[in-house]
């Protein structure tokens, strides 16, 4: 994980965009919480630079 994070840093992608979680099969509520937390984090970071460079000019925005 750390290695891939360093690879992403090399190409100018915030390593915060990649995360690893540990949880067990019984942790349904934790899963939901985790998804929300991570989505919020990404929302704060904004679109990825690759998305901005490739998808955004084409106005390929869903919805």
């Amino acid at each position, binding site marked *: 994980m750390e290695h891939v994070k360093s690879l992403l840093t090399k190409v100018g992608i915030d390593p915060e965009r990649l995360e690893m979680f540990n949880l067990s099969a019984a942790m349904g509520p934790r899963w939901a919480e985790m998804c929300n937390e991570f989505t919020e984090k990404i929302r704060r970071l904004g679109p990825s630079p*690759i998305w901005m*460079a490739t998808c955004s000019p084409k106005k390929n925005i869903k919805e």
Partner: protein
Amino acid sequence: MITGEQKPFEEIWNMVKDFKKVLVFGCNTCVAICHAGGGKEAEILASLLRMRAAEEGAAIEINHAAVERHCEPEFFQPVMENIRTYDLILSTACGVGVNLLSENIGDIPVFPAINTEFFGAVPRAGEFTELCAGCGNCILHLTGGICPIARCSKSLLNGPCGGTNNGNCEVSPDIKCAWVLIYDRMKKLNKLDLMKEINEAKDWSKAQGPRNFKVKVLEEIKK
């Protein structure tokens, strides 16, 4: 095996940024073992370069491929026609591979993506160490199987020198003093008397490149 490490990403990017169609060409033998230039590393490097190109808005087509070996033409000959359609081959093979491919490919540049280092052993997975320098004139029978040419910082033939420091080399505490290792080994082999003999200057002419040789038997068969 040959070891190497990938060049810094910026250096690689500066090599490829002015080309339009680039092939990251991996070699699945030695450099794959040291996680520097196998098919997998070539694929990762190609992916990173594509992302960088997208960010910079550079229209470069970057693909990846790999063959088993770059040091023998028969391995890359079958794909030669395909790779000739690129304007740059970014080779993740060792320097030998880059040279040989350059000679065979015609007018397409072949650039190196890794720094080739030494031929080494793999004492533990992911660790590489230089044990032989390929000097062309082996003296391992005189030194208990431990090579002072490769493993002593000064390549001393008669040692240790004054820089030996509790079994380590003065250059770095991470380097074991080769001559202390030789002493310990000779003691075990009960051959300490060999240590007293002065090893005469070596014939270094055999250590200089360019070197090549032909196998006599095979030559005779060809005739």
